[in-house]
């Protein structure tokens, strides 16, 4: 009897909160597929309050999404994408223009959120993300080190921290072989003034900027964990939380976790600054990303209508107020706190870092970088040979993909 009462009370309170949080009752079944980090959890939880909604949060979403959206009818109505993963959906034409839906339901969106491709709104952005410098402010203050602004200064600071011996390793880095290590290069290379492609789609990484980027990356190994070639963002985040490292160029979306008292031993001790520059007068050596939602093309107009309305409910001010520190939100009502300073300084730097250049060719080059860079960092191959290997690997796959003749 007692249990029954409790259960009943629980159901009633759930119903109550759902009715409170969502302004309407969603009648059309809607499913979404997105990445699994904190911000997506906040958004999909807010959408779920309207009912009839099922969210799939999966870090492997990038491999699933193109095929799932190509199905007819599409397996998901809403997709969570970033500027890196929207490309295959755009190329295959499996997402729909949102202009009429934005007009109908998007009164609260700011123009800044609307991702326009050739004038048509193809996605609605909700947050920006970038890799920037995160550092233990207490350690740097104790040792009298100013916040580093260039990679040379980062290494100088790392040297001092290493001598002081206050942490296991002065630096953390997301250098896991594959996507992560390739991204480190993609951050560093434009910072050295390099461009990725020539006009004829051949790659231009085999250049002085390429050599300089590799040298800068390799210097990090003196200060990182020797197992850095298996460490991804989550691993670096944990090293920070456990007080093992003092500095890292890490994703802004990971900043909130530093102050999570359930996980972190360094609450309030980690500060954020702009991504370090590769050269003193250049842009911060990083790339800018956005995350947002798209609506599938292969679904009925009613479904698209319901899905977009639901997404707008998930991207409202109420959601942001409940999860203010989960991301650098673009949604109205966001109050930037201390942990957002690094990302904002990075994005507003002059010259500003580029957005991640997502194209078919970039996808191929990213894979080539991810496979060939480790041999350089393990010392099996020198910088010049590595750049040649990257160029050859890119050329082979670009020919197979039809990008090069």
């Amino acid at each position, binding site marked *: 009897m007692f249990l029954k009462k409790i259960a009943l009370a629980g159901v009633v309170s759930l119903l109550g909160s759902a009715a409170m949080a969502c302004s309407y009752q969603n009648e059309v079944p809607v499913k979404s597929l997105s990445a699994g980090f904190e911000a997506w959890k906040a958004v999909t939880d807010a959408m779920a309050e309207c009912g009839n909604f099922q969210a799939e949060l999966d870090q492997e979403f990038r*491999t699933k999404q193109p095929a799932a959206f190509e199905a007819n009818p599409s397996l998901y109505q809403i997709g969570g994408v970033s500027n890196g993963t929207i490309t295959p959906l755009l190329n295959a034409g499996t997402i729909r223009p949102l202009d009429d839906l934005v007009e109908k339901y998007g009164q609260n969106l700011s123009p800044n959120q609307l991702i326009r491709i050739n004038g048509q709104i193809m996605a609605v*952005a909700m947050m920006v993300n970038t890799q920037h410098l995160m550092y233990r402010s207490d350690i740097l203050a104790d040792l009298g080190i100013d916040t580093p602004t260039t990679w040379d200064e980062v290494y100088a600071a790392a040297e001092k921290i290493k001598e002081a011996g206050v942490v296991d390793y002065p630096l953390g880095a997301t250098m896991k072989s594959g996507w992560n290590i390739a991204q480190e290069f993609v951050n560093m290379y434009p910072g050295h003034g390099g461009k990725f492609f020539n006009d004829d789609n051949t790659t231009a990484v085999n250049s002085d900027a390429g050599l300089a980027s590799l040298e800068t990356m390799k210097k990090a190994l003196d200060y990182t964990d*020797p197992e850095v070639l*298996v460490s991804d963002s989550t691993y670096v985040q944990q090293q920070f939380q456990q007080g093992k490292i003092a500095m890292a160029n890490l994703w802004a979306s990971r900043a909130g976790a530093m102050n999570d008292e359930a996980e972190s031993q360094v609450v309030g001790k980690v500060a954020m600054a702009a991504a370090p520059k590769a050269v003193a007068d250049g842009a911060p050596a990083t790339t800018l990303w956005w995350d947002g939602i798209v609506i599938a093309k292969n679904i009925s107009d009613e479904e698209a209508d319901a899905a977009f309305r639901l997404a707008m409910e998930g991207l409202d001010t109420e959601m942001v107020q409940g999860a203010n520190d989960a991301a650098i939100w673009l949604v109205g009502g966001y109050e930037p706190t201390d942990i957002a300073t690094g990302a904002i300084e990075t994005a507003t730097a002059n010259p500003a870092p580029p957005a991640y250049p*997502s*194209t078919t060719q970039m996808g191929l080059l990213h894979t080539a970088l991810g496979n060939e860079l480790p041999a350089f960092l393990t010392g099996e191959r020198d910088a010049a040979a590595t750049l040649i290997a990257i160029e050859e690997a890119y050329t082979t796959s670009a020919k*197979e993909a*039809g990008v090069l003749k």
Partner: protein
Amino acid sequence: MKFKTFAAFVGPSVFMMLLFIAAPLVSVFIQSFQVTQPILEQIEVETCTPGFLTQTCTTEIKTVPVLDEAGKTVTATRWVGLQSYRNVLQMDKFWSAVGNGSWNQIMQIDFWKALRFTLSFTLLTLPLVIGVGLAIALAVNNATRSIRGPIIFISLLPFIITPVIGSLSIYWLFVGDGILTAMMERWSGQNISMFAQAWTIELLMYFYRVWHVAPFAFVIFYAGLQTVNMDTLESAVIDGASRWERLRHVIVPHLMPLIIFIALIHLMDCYRVFDEIVGFRSQAHVISLQWLTFDFMTPDDAGNRAMSRASASSMLTMIGIVLLLIMPLRRTWRDHKGSAH
């Protein structure tokens, strides 16, 4: 058995094998000689992305696939002969490295690097699995009946663990300051990083695979030991044969068909080593042939997959397995024919 009965029993299985093994194999074989590409065009695209406060719009020439009226990507398939195989094997680089006499240069080519590891993994774990499996079987066979059950149960445990889970557990036990690394560090007083260099990773992989597969060999050998002819063993004892000589001349020859059977299964399984690579995240240091195929097939952020090279690579893996199996299979065939006379 009547042919009709035989066919009724075997039919469903043959049908399934044709459908799920033979047909995909043929399709992969054909695809390894083809390249399917989308028709691409270069167009000018204006992209507006969020910044802080205002948007930034850039106009650039992008290479994008052409879509037909139904909204499908238009693709063209053409025959390329052995091009995909050349791309995987990279023989020109291989021969120039051989010409330079540089082992290090050969190991820079993905396929040869993967082949080197796959072969050493397969061939080094084989005797260990058979040896350890036989040792456990003999130990259990000689143990008192009362503790036999629990021993069998405990020795079988590693085998029932899903390979991916098993390799992930080993990874977590050893990575960074994992429990076992921390223990080793306390004993040795040194900072140990098991995942920082290739040889320690490989060592862990060998250890893990032997730990995982030895129970299988044990079960088979233990069953085999129950059928050893006691009269022969007793007469060997009377002839003054030592325990080692009995093992060498009576037990091992009796178990030989089982040893061959386990060797066959092990060669086939190990040549497709994959779980360890993913579980240990060893791609920077150690890769295997099966992982290479997987890597070709995995789409990148822009949705590209190297299907032709993946097909060529899996055909090469199959050829490798066939070559490896020829030796033990020929022996079995000879024995089989011999016993018929």
